[in-house]
């Protein structure tokens, strides 16, 4: 115990020095910042004034993300894509590890996992339908009101999660088979880039808004902003379900090893 504390002490001193240094620099920087409430840039005001006349997009944040700053959002989308690929790589089962899960073990021993309670089943089934509707609404109305593909995609991904919580893993795998979700992940990521090439095909710039703009306030408006939102929603929802499936498989594997010990 004493030895352990002595080993930690130099690091604690180093931490204290670092935090003190950071705090003094932060304090100086914060004093120099303009007071909150006076902010907003000239660019922000410009975009608020021009988003509806130029793009028919009522939600200026969506217009910035999916049009004026659309190229950055492609990068952001691929950060998510790379992270999903990273998690799937880190959590992959190696070939020498036997590919049994607790579920296979249960099946071979002719026993079933404990049933979910009725209340949880009803709540989960009810939530699944509601979240699908709300997620689709959010993903397709980003140009009209606050929301958009990222938010809608996250809400959509909670539907399989609610189903898993209410039922068994087999139901989760039936409604969200791995190959289909992986396909959606790739299609969503590629769809946004394809929209960029649409601009080039029309003889304009990459990602330029070349689709018909429609009327501001309509769901079918703002040209590529709506299409990009749908592509991002697909990518985000599929990515999150893939993450969920990877962590779930890991948990099932562990339950078996704990049981074996």
């Amino acid at each position, binding site marked *: 115990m004493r030895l*352990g504390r002595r080993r*930690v002490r130099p690091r*604690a001193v180093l*931490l204290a020095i670092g*935090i003190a240094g*950071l*705090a003094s620099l*932060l*304090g100086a920087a*914060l004093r120099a*910042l303009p*007071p*909150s*409430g*006076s*902010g*907003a*840039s000239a*660019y*922000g*005001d410009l*975009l*608020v004034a021009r*988003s*509806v006349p130029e793009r*028919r997009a*009522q*939600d*200026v*944040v969506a*217009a*910035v*993300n999916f049009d004026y*700053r659309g190229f*950055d*959002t492609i990068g*952001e989308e691929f*950060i*998510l894509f*790379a*992270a*999903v690929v*990273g*998690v799937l790589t*880190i*959590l992959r089962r190696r070939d020498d590890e036997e590919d049994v899960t607790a579920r296979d073990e249960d099946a071979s021993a002719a026993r079933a996992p404990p049933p979910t309670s009725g209340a949880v089943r009803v709540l989960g089934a009810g939530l699944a339908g509601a979240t699908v509707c709300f997620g689709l609404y959010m993903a397709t109305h980003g140009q009209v*009101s*606050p929301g958009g593909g*990222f938010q809608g995609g996250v809400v959509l991904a909670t539907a399989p999660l609610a189903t898993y919580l209410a039922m068994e893993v087999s139901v989760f795998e039936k409604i969200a088979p791995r190959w289909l979700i992986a396909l959606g992940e790739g299609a969503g990521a590629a769809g946004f880039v394809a929209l960029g090439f649409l601009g080039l095909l029309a003889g304009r710039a990459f990602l330029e808004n070349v689709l018909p703009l429609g*009327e*501001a*306030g309509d769901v079918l408006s703002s040209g590529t902003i709506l299409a990009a939102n749908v592509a991002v929603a697909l990518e985000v929802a599929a990515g999150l379900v893939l*993450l969920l499936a*990877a*962590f779930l498989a*890991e948990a099932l594997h562990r339950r078996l090893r704990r049981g074996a010990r």
Partner: protein
Amino acid sequence: MTTLLSHLPWAVAAWLLACGLYGVATSRNLVHLVVCLSVLQSSTYLVLLGVGWRTGATAPVVVAGAPPSAGPVADPIVQALMLTDVVVGATVTALLLALAVQVHERAGTLDPERLRRLRG
């Protein structure tokens, strides 16, 4: 008093940053460490929103056909940046948690103090 209130977002951001940093540096559990990192990162959300905020501002949503609002509007650019920030935060959390799972698999512990040796 007004100076205090107008600098409140910056002060809270600094506080969150310090809390998160202390947690990351002293954590004895890798999952706890990842949560501390999320706390640390949430300070950046506050700074971004504070930068774009104007006293009495409305959200940057323009309703076509309605009379233009007379008051100030919050800056949409920093709000769009914050969305990127949230996405990056979520992906980093997912990656780090996957690494924590692997660490536990290989070393049998989540305590960084007990991860002394590098194993190839």
